[in-house]
């Protein structure tokens, strides 16, 4: 359908653009967050560009975090006596008794917070609108007290600076390695535990690839063979088997879940990757159906001619039907890869030890350990799971769309 009026066309575009903005924003938010330093994930309003701030702290130009905006006229002082002797402090001007060179300080005495007057030296007066900044450090383990200062906004250099190292850090900690240790060793310091005995991202990726690759192989081979038997071989019982195949598509997974677990448990395979890919070698109702429908569109005459020439049934399948079926094989391979890569419930059910985890399960496990705090690492790890799928999609878009459309319409 084509919009008839220019107004109609504009309206369609406005709606399309607005809609795609809504659908795209979560992705952008994911990427932006994954490239932020932690303190910039927790500010309202959120920033859309990860930045690095540089300011002069006690005479040195270094990277800082902006802690807060000084709202009242304040003074920067050095304490001359008392328990906090020698410390630099930022105080509201009202706490300073300038005439006597004393200031009201909060000190802890016998576990109670109390205010007392102590002699101080004023370093300088701070006007409202300045920023309290602190030397930036990724690690919580510090080798020295972090420097801080109060600087006017104009003195802070803000430069767009995506933290690409969030990615290696997220991946390194995904397997349960200590975050501080990782951050420390990446900052150039080698901690005592240099021997990496932990399971890491590479193991999860390998597991996922094993499950995906073997699963795809199994799905393509088994479903094609079976679909051929249901579409091109005329035999007694064929229609009954096909009807039964369709009927099983109705059965929800929770019904099968408990006995399936029992089957693999009795085979001693719970805790291994086998339950996640072995079933693919025995066909699945949906894929058999998909392939059968495709095989039916290939004229029988092709097979008949070969049969007269003395070709076996297997020969017909292998040399004539399969080469003609590339599109539907691609659809099945793609769908199986996608569902294996995305599968969460299967791994959750069967995998118990960390070194067998797939990426999806490892990500959930990571979240349950670091969740709610380290959003930048969580988003980076999520992006690592999402990006391969998006790349795959861009290369196989046509197959994808055609596959889904067929399942819905001709199904």
């Amino acid at each position: 359908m084509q919009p008839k009026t220019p107004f109609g066309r504009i309206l369609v575009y406005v709606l399309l653009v607005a809609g795609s903005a809504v659908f795209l924003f979560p992705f952008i938010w994911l990427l932006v967050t994954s490239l932020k330093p932690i303190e910039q994930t927790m500010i309202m309003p959120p920033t859309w560009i990860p930045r690095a701030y540089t300011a002069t702290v006690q005479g040195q130009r270094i990277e800082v975090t902006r802690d807060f905006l000084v709202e009242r006229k304040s003074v920067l002082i050095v304490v001359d006596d008392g328990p906090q002797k020698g410390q630099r402090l930022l105080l509201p001007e009202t706490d300073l008794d300038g005439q006597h060179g004393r200031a009201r300080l909060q000190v802890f005495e016998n576990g109670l917070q109390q205010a007392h007057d102590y002699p101080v030296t004023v370093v300088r007066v701070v006007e409202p609108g300045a920023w309290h900044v602190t030397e930036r450090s990724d690690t919580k383990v510090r080798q020295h007290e972090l420097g801080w200062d109060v600087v006017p906004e104009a003195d802070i250099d803000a430069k767009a600076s995506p933290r690409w190292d969030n990615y290696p850090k997220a991946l390194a900690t995904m397997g349960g390695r200590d975050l501080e240790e990782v951050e420390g060793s990446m900052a150039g310091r080698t901690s005592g535990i240099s021997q990496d005995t932990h399971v890491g991202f590479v193991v999860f990726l390998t597991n996922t690839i094993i499950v995906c690759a073997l699963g795809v192989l199994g799905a393509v081979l088994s479903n094609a063979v079976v679909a051929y038997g249901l579409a091109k071989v005329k035999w007694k019982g064929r229609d009954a088997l096909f009807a039964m195949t369709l009927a099983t598509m109705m059965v929800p997974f929770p019904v099968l879940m408990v006995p399936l677990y029992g089957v693999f448990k009795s085979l001693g395979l719970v805790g291994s990757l086998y339950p996640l890919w072995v079933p693919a070698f025995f066909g699945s109702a949906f894929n058999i159906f998909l392939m059968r429908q495709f095989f039916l569109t290939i004229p029988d005459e092709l097979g008949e001619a070969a049969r007269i020439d003395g070709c076996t049934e297997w020969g017909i399948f292998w040399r004539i039907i399969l080469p003609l079926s590339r599109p539907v094989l691609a659809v099945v391979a793609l769908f199986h890869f996608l569902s294996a890569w995305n599968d969460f419930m299967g791994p959750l059910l069967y995998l118990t030890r960390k070194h067998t985890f797939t990426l999806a399960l490892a990500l959930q496990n990571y979240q349950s350990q670091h969740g709610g705090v380290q959003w930048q690492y969580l988003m980076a790890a999520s992006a690592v799971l999402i990006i391969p799928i998006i790349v795959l999609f861009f290369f196989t878009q046509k197959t994808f769309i055609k596959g889904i459309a067929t399942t819905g319409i001709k199904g």
Partner: protein
Amino acid sequence: MTRRERQSFWNGIAFTAPWLIGLSVFTLYPVVASLYYSFCDYSVLQAPVWTGAENYTRLFRDDLFWLSLKNTLIFAALSIPFGTVVSLSLALLLNCEVKGTPLFRTIFYLPSIVPLVASSMLWLWIFNGSYGLLNFALNPILGLFGAKAPTWLTDPNWAKPALVMMGLWGVGNSMVIYLAGLQDVPKELYEAAEIDGATPWRQFWHVTLPMLSPVIYFNVIMGIIGSLQTFTQAFIMTGPDGPPARSTLFYALYLFTTAFYDLRMGYASAMAWILFIIIVILTVFATKWFEKRMHYGR
């Protein structure tokens, strides 16, 4: 059987052998076994003990069972209609022949292939009450009316709607199916309707919807089956117990924890069969409803 029939019979068996095994081991046996377990006390560690209908009678007295069923039905009742409206609207937009539709189609479709674990993480962050993207967008608007956005996943009243909203982001699949359906509607029908003076609105109601009804039926059935089994999002975003205040304790979540945390596999199997029956009943209802209104063929 003649020799030839026998020959092709064995050929048929040989070709379908993988599936004959797969069907028996991975579908038929589990179906029968789970029905049997549903009448047993079974913990996977020990052999099942027959207890008759006890699991079922206990289920009907189990408050959490009813709560999880209620939660799931509310979730389905929200997500199916909203999902249908959103995916059909997007498909209608994409069906307009304007430049750039392949790009827009890709954008709308992408979220539906993202791993659910990853999109759960993403939406967990978007729904974050203090620093989330959603409340950043909503609070200024709601502020005009003196209202404040909820904290979504930690608010018992808003956790379910939040999960529904997240689901709308992933309607790409049904959208593509609708789009294919729309492209199959013969153009002559619209031309005829236009000659008769039908407005676009009337064309939609009297041409598009009837012609699309088999596709809507398919998507609604898929929606029923899918939403009644909602598991991953809730497991990850709120937790196995369905917090806050068990407002996201969905049926599949309760079933899973009963089976694999409490190891009450018999009880869980009874739950699974009740779910199966509910799905069948709803599917039959939907089929009856659509049969009266469905338009087949051209």
